[in-house]
């Protein structure tokens, strides 16, 4: 490998799509790939927060000896001699289905449509429940509010298909400082429409912390 500044002992040499790459301990497969200009699609990954692994678009197929697995690259560190395939059939199958289902789940999202089209998915076989929906419940907004802003103003309620981004009792949360970080991390722009349900009407916030 070209990187001469690292001693050979703490460098992990492995392969992504046949290309030999090197990582330092602590890097994930995704980070290493990106550092080497290898593209892996993601929706729920943002450098500002710890990876959560919800969108599963970043899955890659790995081969280590006889062991073949499909794993999310955003969470898994490489091991020496690992072979990573970012475009295998199994990987593409996962991505295509996720994107096709997302087309039905977030029909209003331009970003999802674009991403899906880039993977050859242009139509969906699944039923659209809410044509205005954009939120894919990736959890970035919740994570950024907890980890970066530190106020925990919004959260997920319920579970499974009913999982929804909300504030306790679905009323604007006074803990919200209206910073909009949740809007910035949102991969689909869903929070842009929803921010007001979290922060409420800023001009009516109590106390002169917010103008009134």
């Amino acid at each position: 490998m070209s990187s001469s500044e690292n001693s050979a002992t703490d460098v992990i040499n492995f392969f992504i799509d046949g290309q030999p790459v090197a990582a330092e301990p602590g890097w994930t497969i995704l980070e290493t790939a990106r550092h080497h200009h290898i593209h892996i699609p993601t929706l729920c990954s943002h450098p500002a927060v710890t990876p959560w692994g919800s969108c599963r678009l970043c899955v890659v197929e790995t081969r280590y000896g006889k062991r073949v697995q499909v794993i999310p690259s955003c969470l898994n560190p490489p091991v020496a001699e690992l072979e990573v395939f970012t475009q295998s059939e199994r990987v593409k199958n996962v991505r295509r289905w996720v994107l096709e289902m997302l087309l039905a789940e977030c029909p209003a999202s331009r970003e999802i449509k674009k991403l899906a089209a880039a993977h050859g998915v242009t139509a969906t076989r699944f039923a659209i429940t809410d044509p205005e929906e954009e939120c894919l419940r990736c959890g970035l907004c919740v994570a950024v509010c907890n980890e970066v802003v530190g106020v925990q103003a919004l959260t997920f309620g319920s579970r499974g298909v009913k999982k929804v981004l909300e504030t306790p009792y679905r009323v604007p949360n006074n803990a919200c400082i209206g910073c909009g970080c949740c809007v910035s991390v949102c991969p689909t722009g869903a929070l842009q429409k929803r921010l007001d349900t979290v922060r409420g009407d800023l001009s009516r916030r109590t106390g002169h912390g917010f103008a009134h």
Partner: protein
Amino acid sequence: MSPTQSVKPETPAPRLGVFLCECGTRIAPGVDHTVLTQLLDEPPGVGHVETLPFSCLRPGLARIKAAVAAKGLNRLIIAGCESRLLHKKFEQALEGLGLAETQIDMVNLRDHVARVHSAAPAELAQKGAKLIRASQAWLETLKPAPRIRIDYQGPVMVLGGGVAAYGAAQELAGQGVDTLLPLTYDPAEEMQRAHQLYLGDYHSYDRLERLIGEVEASPNVNQTRVGSLLQVSGKFGDYTVTFASPDGQSRVDFKAGAIIAALDWEHVHQLPELGHGGTRVVCQIELNELIQQGGPIEGRVIFWINDLDAGQPFAAPLSMKSAWTMATHLRENFPATQVAILYDSTMPTPLGSFDRARARELGIALTPYDNHVHPTVKNEYISYNRATDRTEQDLAWDLLVLSPRRAPGAEALKTAKILGLEVKEEAFLDRSPQMVRPDQVVLGEKLMVGSACQPCDLRGALSQGRRVAEKTAALVKKALAGDLYAPQVISTVDQSKCTVCTLCREVCDCLAIQPVSGPVEGLGHNVPRMVDPMLCTGEGTCAASCPEMALTLANCTRAQHEARVAALARSLAPDEVMGFGCQWSGAAAADQAGLRGLSYNRRFYLLPVRCLGQIDPVVMGRTFLEGANGLLLIGCNPEECHHSYGIDHTWSRVWVLKKLLSLCGLERERIALAHSDITQPDRFVTTVESFMKTMATLGPIQRDAEIQGRLQALYDALHVSRVRWVLGVSLRRPWESAYPSHMPNPAAYDHTLTEILTEEFFRARVKNLMRQQGKLLQLSDITQALGVDEVQAHEYLKDMGYEGLIAISFVNRNRFYGLPSGPQ
């Protein structure tokens, strides 16, 4: 400390490193990084330049760290994406290498350049380079201020002495924190008060009694009898709280490190309009007393939960609860009663199925009424509309029980006033100050707890006290361990310049500039202001409006702002325009425009700021002086400033700038204030496009010596404390309710302001003229050179002479004007 380290105290010279992020493919092909690197390498070079595929991921961070370590970089520019989200990550990654957060700046190449413009990558590289150069000027002007460690002394004082105060004291004592509990009455009275205030909370009384005993017995709590609160001064870690002595004859000072204001509300009887007379129509307060006396109570007792009708909807669930506990108590202990509870069907009722079953068991009628018709009290019965079928019904009564009215107590109101807190219209002291850092979330809550702030029952008041005490205790422990530092960007006062005009205190929204409340004994009002570093949020409106420029925002100074705008303004082409964007709104909307794939005129350059209120008018003047043809300020929507009044202040400042621009003979439209929000990137784009169109119509400023001279005068005039003071007093005060500033006679006010500005503009021009000419001038020289009316000029010059700003001399009976000799 080794001796070698203490020898060199001076700060090292700035060494800059620029890291260009490709963000995968989101910046790189759109912006030509090779061209950008070349531009940055041109003299004056920026130092280290490096391109990274993803600077924010671990491989990228590793490279940055390596470069910082190898080249001793102490200023970093990350040219990538949003600072709001990622600045913290870089801070954390580089903390170990001795870089403070203020030494790292981020330029959003992705959302402000690459993704919003479609132009040749090399051209976009030009734009990127200009923004990076501006950031370079900012960082190179930065003189890192030393970190302020908070010294903490004294106990935590819990003001109020109510139930919440006991809750707080118990928690603090339990955590081993020294606590001072000043009481305005005998502790034994507290139980009596609780019985009166927290109606029907029978099952919590013994718990409270235990708690009071526990607090009294605790070695960590010092209870002391005092008179009323007079004054609070000092800052976090070191407060002096003055009370009257219990007999009211003298003053007593107490030292405290932190203050928790735990204030209880008071109950007031219902208005007599509904027949309340204390015999047949009573308040829950009176019934409560009657119950405690043991009666006699018999006959038909109707509880009417009339809080909604009385305009106190927040109290309805509490009244319902107290009515419910009293009702069950009545049925269990006074068998000769029949009980019904009449309540608005739309109110949230705290009674569940268990209670309903119990109501059936005890024979308590729960009767919801339709609130379209107010129940009417008649002598024998009360008539109401049944909620289910909306038909009129009668309910006979012998004793009608109304809800009490709840309001903060007189003592609570007084304390709040002394602490500089605001009392809301609904008579609650609720307050949610802006929270910019997690530490301040704690402090924000520290100030007010108790039922006066939030309607609650006894248990709620206790738990509020505990919650706040818990957080305060953590902060105090941190401070005592020497680990508590003030944030890096806070206001600091140069006390030698402060003239105690108190403008800053009026402007301050974070209660940081109010260590002194009211006059100080022996010193009167004339005590220079101080800033409580733990309360300051670093918004900086105070610094930007100080008439004497005595306030400075550490690590975010006016000098930095000026250097940044100067660097950018100088580099702009004639058709290029710059602007400021508030990080909460304008800049955030710009980021959002990039993320949402919108596009706008690439000749617009946006500089992000923490709050527009931070932009001193001097900085605005500087942009025009340095070559900007227009300035667009994009802040929060009216009434929505995230700090408090930054947008209002900017509004006034822009207004002054417009006046000055027209005095310069330039179009007022060259400066504009716009509003935006992170949820409205499309509106941001419209704003920018329309301003660009205006600027295209206006064309560049023809910068001859005359115009530059005028702009210099504009810039100089903005430094004058008189201008700044007039501007300051036109600012909005926290207690004002209209936007923009409410003024009794706006036209007259505006006239005065224009006059003052005209005069100060003239003065600045005269002084500059004198400096340029370097000789004594006659009136005609001045009027010709400045093109002003002679009579007016004569008046102005006369005043200048009186004020000693210029020297007037006579040669051959001719008046000559010149700069005064001596130190200028």
